């Protein structure tokens, strides 16, 4: 299913257009020794009743577990091991191994030195890019390609494409403007485009850079995204 994004051009006209991720190019796949098809399966290896923590709770010490391992197979749940795990539900376990029925979600912030800086109840951060979100403004901040690739790691990218004839003209115009300027447009959310782009609920915030190219009657408009600067680590 196509995802959508609302963009504004330099004439302050906005339109909703499609947003596409790159399809990974996979030139090979795994096969068995005789070329037969194989697939990856998730199988149960251990259950909560046979985990090290559970064995420690049952036997009291590592030494006692050693004795139990010699005497039998307490680490193997024979009824469950090797079973396929499909349609499983994610649950959370307390430190005593019991299932948690009322979870509290907190957000912990760690500094660059790894030390905890703050801890607070988690609150959802909604997406600000998409079908329901307001149009991203034309920030007018054009940055030379050389500067962008020397300052930021562009780790994600989306191709932006038209959904009808009118949006073809709209996007072709943006691509042509950027191509002729030889620059990337800084893209952000909010009224002035100063806030980061968030594509999904609680998703990673990114800074956006719009690249435009055209060739004859075709265009290529790519929204490059970065959440990392090219900086030496302390």
């Amino acid at each position: 299913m196509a995802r959508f994004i609302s963009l504004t051009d330099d004439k302050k006209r906005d339109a909703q257009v499609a947003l596409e991720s790159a399809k990974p190019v996979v030139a090979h796949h795994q096969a068995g020794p005789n070329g037969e098809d194989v697939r990856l399966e998730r199988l149960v290896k251990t259950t909560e009743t046979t985990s090290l923590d559970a064995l420690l709770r049952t036997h009291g010490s590592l030494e006692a577990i050693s004795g139990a391992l010699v005497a039998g197979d307490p680490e193997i749940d024979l009824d469950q091991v090797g079973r396929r795990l499909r349609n499983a539900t994610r649950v959370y376990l307390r430190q005593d191994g019991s299932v948690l029925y009322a979870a509290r979600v907190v957000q912990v912030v760690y500094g660059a030195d790894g030390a905890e800086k703050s801890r607070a109840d988690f609150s959802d951060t909604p997406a600000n890019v998409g079908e329901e979100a307001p149009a991203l403004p034309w920030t007018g901040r054009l940055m030379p390609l050389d500067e962008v690739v020397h300052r930021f790691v562009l780790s994600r990218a989306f191709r932006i494409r038209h959904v009808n004839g009118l949006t073809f003209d709209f996007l072709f115009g943006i691509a042509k403007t950027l191509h002729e300027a030889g620059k990337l447009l800084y893209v952000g959310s909010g009224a002035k485009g100063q806030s980061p782009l968030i594509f999904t609920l609680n998703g990673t915030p990114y800074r956006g850079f719009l690249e435009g190219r055209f060739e004859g009657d075709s265009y290529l408009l790519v929204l490059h995204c970065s959440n990392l600067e090219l900086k030496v680590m302390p």
Partner: protein
Amino acid sequence: MAKSIALTLGAEASSFSFVRLDRDKLYGRKERQIVDQDGRRCTSAYLSSDGAALVPSGGLALLYVDEGFATIERSTLRAVDDQGADVPLVPSTLGIEQELEGPIAPQRLLDHAIHTVYQLQSETLGAQLAEALGSGNIFCAPFNFRDDYQRQMLFLLRNDTGTFALIGSPRGFAYVSREVAPDAAADEADDLADDLDFTML
């Protein structure tokens, strides 16, 4: 001793030690944690659909199986293409001199999805390469951290803070053009050419 990234530009050889650029070490990180009523951290687990198995983190094994559900040892797996032909293993480039291409246009870098960045420390640096990097030029060379079936591309550049190698593979975005609607058949009857029929209203 860890192997270096070895590169050549013309007749000059350069080599770099490297460390992966880690976002957490630059900015810190945020983590979402699930805690119980006493604020103690809880761990995630999977509950099987019949409720019989509670599988803790690390309690799953990923195994390759064939159509008959027989386990296939990973060491016996083959990498094949769509026609079933073996795909050759591309060796690691670490410690093996790779010829740099460039200077290249920055668009070339934009055409690649960057998945890893290394912060470089030069062990030996050719004068020609040092000058070119200092002028803002970008170079590229084939790269593989380990033996793999796909060759990656390394982009070498320097900015005010240091020298970096950006590792990526082509994004594969193509230009798009207007999809032209097919012309209406010339002999197709034009419904609107008839007199407008108001009796149906």
